[in-house]
């Protein structure tokens, strides 16, 4: 079967000028000619920036392809080339179907025109024919839920109404290939849900969807396969879950391992020193420490050496981004009442259970206390845990991060009466 989209060695470069020597006004152009090359021409300080660099892939009909990558990785450039807004510098693309691109909701909406007029305007801009719009007009209006304001200029709409109307027009496009860029970023949860449902419907009728988003949960829910673009190149192309995992691992902000070989650098207090703090997750018997997930336990190991007998314990503070403490926990050597632990090496192992943490970067503060009150060692941000959500949610569900510093799984029982 021939692929519906095939991209071969696609590159797109932009020239970035460092000295701002590219004339922005016609006056400067004329001016530069009038200088008669008195000085030898300076070598132009251009840097070629590869927005896309030798990208090749194929998409089969009916596939829903997610495209992920950090900002500036080239995702949007790719969509812009596919939708013919800009042309590639080299390489080629073959498209075997009508393309509609939705890079923005409400492109071309005119504030002075009424909702009704804007439906026709926006529809044509997105490539629908007049007769097609007329046929679907009622459906579009129904979907948007703004019937009452159809003859009001859209400048008087609330931003929610505006987006809903704009999206309903876009949702009624019927291309063979639909390119969507980050439309989930706008709108509330109801809108987001409608949006995803519609994309699902589109793909179920055998059409092909390319979906750029930073919302990995939505990508996971929706996409059959996934493309990770980074630094203008394809980093990975394949199964969605695998692709997302690789992507997360690459940009994880975890630093899960801290150790000190040189004793002096580790602590000022000479009775105790922290040799190592390390976090890892155990997934199907494989120990990983690149990033952490909400639904697998995390093991934190702390190695402490003491030089004299002490009455001490290790306390962990889990801090969220705002600097607040989400929770604390401590552990201490086993001992009798009031008995001091002898000098030596101790290893603390703390297990943070699965289904407790939220999607968050936790910064860990380690404190070694003596006799409950004296802080012998305080290590700020000794490790940090980048915890990600890798669960797949059902389509109708909220696809974003849940609020709150923690997201524990609690027992719920519901009886119908």
């Amino acid at each position, binding site marked *: 079967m021939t692929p519906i989209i095939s991209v071969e060695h696609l590159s797109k470069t*932009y020239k970035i000028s460092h000295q701002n020597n590219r*004339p*922005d*006004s*016609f*006056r400067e*152009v004329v001016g530069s000619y009038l200088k008669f090359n008195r000085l030898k021409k300076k070598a132009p300080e251009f840097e070629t920036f590869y927005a896309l660099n030798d990208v090749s892939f194929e998409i089969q009909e009916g596939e829903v392809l997610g495209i992920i990558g950090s900002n500036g990785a080239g995702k949007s450039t790719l969509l*812009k*080339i*596919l*939708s*013919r*807004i*800009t*042309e*590639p*510098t*080299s*390489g*080629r*693309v*073959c*498209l*075997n*179907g*009508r*393309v509609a*691109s939705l*890079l*923005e909701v409400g*492109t*071309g909406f*005119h504030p*002075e*025109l009424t909702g009704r*007029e804007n439906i*026709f*305007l926006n529809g*044509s*801009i*997105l*490539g629908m*024919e*007049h007769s097609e719009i007329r046929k679907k007009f009622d459906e579009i209006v129904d979907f948007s839920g703004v019937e009452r304001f159809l003859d009001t200029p859209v400048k008087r709409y609330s931003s929610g109404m505006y987006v809903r109307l704009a999206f309903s027009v876009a949702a009624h496009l019927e291309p*063979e290939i639909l390119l969507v860029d980050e439309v989930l970023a706008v709108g509330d949860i109801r809108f987001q849900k409608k949006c995803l449902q519609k994309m699902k419907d589109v793909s179920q009728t055998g059409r092909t969807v390319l979906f750029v988003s930073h919302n990995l949960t939505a990508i996971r829910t929706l996409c059959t396969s996934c493309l990770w673009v980074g630094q203008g190149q394809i980093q990975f192309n394949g199964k969605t879950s695998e692709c997302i995992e690789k992507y997360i691992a690459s940009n994880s902000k975890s630093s899960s391992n801290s150790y000190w070989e040189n004793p002096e650098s580790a602590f000022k207090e000479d009775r105790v020193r922290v040799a190592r703090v390390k976090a890892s997750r155990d997934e199907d018997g494989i120990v990983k420490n690149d990033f952490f997930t909400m639904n697998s336990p995390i093991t934190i190991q702390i190695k402490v050496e003491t030089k004299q007998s002490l009455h001490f314990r290790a306390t962990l503070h889990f801090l969220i981004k705002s600097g607040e403490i989400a929770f604390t926990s401590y552990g201490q050597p086993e001992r009798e009442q009031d008995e001091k632990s002898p000098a030596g090496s101790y290893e603390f192992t703390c297990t943070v259970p699965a289904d407790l943490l939220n999607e968050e970067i936790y910064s860990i503060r380690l404190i070694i206390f003596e006799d409950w009150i004296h802080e012998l060692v305080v290590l700020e941000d000794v490790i940090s845990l980048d915890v990600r959500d890798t669960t797949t949610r059902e389509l109708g569900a909220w696809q974003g991060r849940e609020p709150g510093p923690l997201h524990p799984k609690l027992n719920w029982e519901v009886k119908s009466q």
Partner: protein
Amino acid sequence: MKQPTLIIEAGRSEKNYWLDLWRYRELFLILAWRDISVRYKQTFVGVSWALLQPFLQIVVFTLVFSWLLNTPSEGDAPYAIMAFAAMLPWQFFATALTNSSQSVVGSSNLISKVYFPRLIVPCASMVVCLIDFLIASLIFGLLALWYQFLPDWRILTLPFFLLVAFLAALGPGLLIAAMNVRYRDFRYVLPFIIQFGLYASAVPISLSLIREKLLALPYGEHLYQLYCLNPMVGVIDGFRWALLGGESQLYWPGFCISLAAILIMLWVGIHFFRKTERTFADII
């Protein structure tokens, strides 16, 4: 409606560009309709502006040129009618040129988000000027009534000269529109061209008077033909011929020279526009 394979490649001049243009004709109509309906939404201001501007200018011209300076008219038509017959295409040309040259920069949000043949934008922006032209024509009608002046059959040729005026504005319009994308200061050139062009195209003066003066010089005939390189000279000559009727004459060699200049400008405009339109989205 299965579409044939579309290939996107660097520098590929799309073979079906003109076909695409045809396919997007509805977008052209919609964009033109948008401009018109936005302009006339606040109806009173929109319409009265289109009426008032040329009318006041004619009043001034009549006072200065006819009453004060005794400038002769063309044939047997009253001076105000003669001036207005030139003001009609000139006003159309000036607004069409201004609109089209601002159009591409003005719709940067569309250009950076959707594909369509970019040529649609400047063309559609000129349509609203046609409506202004029709309204100004009404004033011409009233003025003709006032002077009890009746045009003859030649008025039927007016659409042809209007088309020529449209093309005359389109060529430089496309050129400036494309230049404007890169060099934003280009728009400052425009008011100057329009201000100067009003006199350079002999809107308040009879062309036969200019011709008479030039013919008195050596190589007068050629000098006048050189003058006809100004596209609007041919258009205005044509408009006067069509509207004033009677004794007014159309100088055909001059008209052909103007027409040739218009077509050359059009060719240059379209080529430049098409050559640069692929990069619009990158630099706009």
